[in-house]
């Protein structure tokens, strides 16, 4: 039976993983290779490197980070953040990423999804959707949650799928950083609307939050960052809990 995936996200800035070690703004949580190695040893199923740097210097450092992580870890690696053009996506993939995650650029130009999917296959293209509840809608925002789009998350996920996306990474802006649990209702709405896998993100706090998102939320995978960085929640412990609840995982 297909396992539910646990994905760790590394927010990388200038070659360092940021946030997660405490709640007081951006602090270094270590170097990406060491964290990636630790997660791999604990049984993480997949890694996402999210570039939160805007500078050219940071971009070059990112390629070095991707290369260093991909050289020794043989699990899927996705890279996102600031991928605006086909060339940006190609650079991440050439450096060793298996998948690229598109967000703002896909909203502005959905054909970017198609072009990257034609070049590297749909399995290499993840469309990240940041959404928050506005009335009874799940409104999609670009630019790290700063700019409202006209899309509803369900409709945009369907559109992304039809453009060639291989997976959806769905983040609840409302829940992000709150540690009160995933938005299971939104996740289930999107997951039921598309045939491609949906990765839930935003709000992971306790082990039971993951149980909920894989049952009520109908998620195919769940992503978290800070709860893994501080080592209070180990990936292994989380997977044991899921296994006890009858949720298929790779132990």
């Amino acid at each position, binding site marked *: *039976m*297909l396992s539910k995936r646990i994905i760790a996200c590394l927010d990388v800035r200038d070659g360092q993983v940021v946030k997660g070690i405490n709640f007081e703004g951006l602090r270094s949580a270590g170097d990406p290779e060491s964290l990636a190695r630790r997660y791999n040893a604990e049984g993480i199923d997949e890694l996402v490197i999210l570039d939160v740097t805007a500078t050219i210097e940071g971009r070059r450092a990112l390629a070095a980070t991707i290369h260093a992580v991909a*050289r020794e870890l*043989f*699990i*899927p690696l996705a890279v996102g953040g600031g991928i605006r053009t086909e060339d940006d996506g190609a650079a991440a993939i050439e450096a*060793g990423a298996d998948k690229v995650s598109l967000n703002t650029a896909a909203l502005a130009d959905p054909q970017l999804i198609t072009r990257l999917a034609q070049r590297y296959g749909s399995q290499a293209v993840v469309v990240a959707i940041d959404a928050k509840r506005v009335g009874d809608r799940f409104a999609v925002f670009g630019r790290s949650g700063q700019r409202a789009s006209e899309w509803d998350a369900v409709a945009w996920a369907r559109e992304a799928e039809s453009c060639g996306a291989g997976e959806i990474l769905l983040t609840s802006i409302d829940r992000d950083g709150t540690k009160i649990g995933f938005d299971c209702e939104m996740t289930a709405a999107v997951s039921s609307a598309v045939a*491609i896998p949906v990765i839930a993100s935003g709000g992971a706090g306790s082990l039971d939050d993951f149980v909920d998102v894989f049952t009520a939320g109908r998620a195919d995978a769940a992503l978290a960052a800070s709860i893994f960085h501080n080592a209070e929640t180990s990936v292994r412990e989380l997977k044991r809990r899921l296994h006890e609840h009858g949720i298929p995982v790779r132990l």
Partner: protein
Amino acid sequence: MSACALVDYGAGNLTSVKKAFAAIGVDIFVPSAPADLAAASAVIVPGVGHFSATRALAGEWTDAILERVGEGRPLLGICLGMHWLFEASDEAPDMPGLGVMSGTIVRLGDARLKGGSPSPIKVPHVGWNALAICRDSPLLSGVEPGSQVYFSHSYAAPLTSETIAVTEHGAPFAAIVQRGQIAGVQFHPEKSGEAGLQILRNFAELAR
């Protein structure tokens, strides 16, 4: 010892496969023309995407690969490369495969994938799933039954006498096929952690 040839026919990125072979200390080269295959100790056909992409292998590449196979050199197809080993695929019905494995590739959920406990599934099948080993093979040396490996595909091979490991997604399908020195894996060994690397090591051993 000469190196294994990794055939680049434009179906996806080869970086991950190259890195995995580098990590296990196996020399790999990417032949620029079919004639370069003469020097290969083994041939690997990777690939992701649509079956029609294997059109690029028709003609001289096919002839050169079959020549190596005729000499007893090992051949490994990965994912789309595995599909190409079969006679045909429903994904591009007008195109023949290499035909060294019997059968036709069908879409996941197709009634020709029989057995198991049919349940609603998502297609593509993306993620980690278990290998049930159904036949002993040097390719599986050191691989624990039930090991999980990473899949990403929408089409799959039905079970045949050439199936050596089975995976279930809605219904069982062939995760690994082998006939003599020819093998195919539906999953991505280069992305499947230690179990995947072990299978690549075992394949490289066949080439010794």
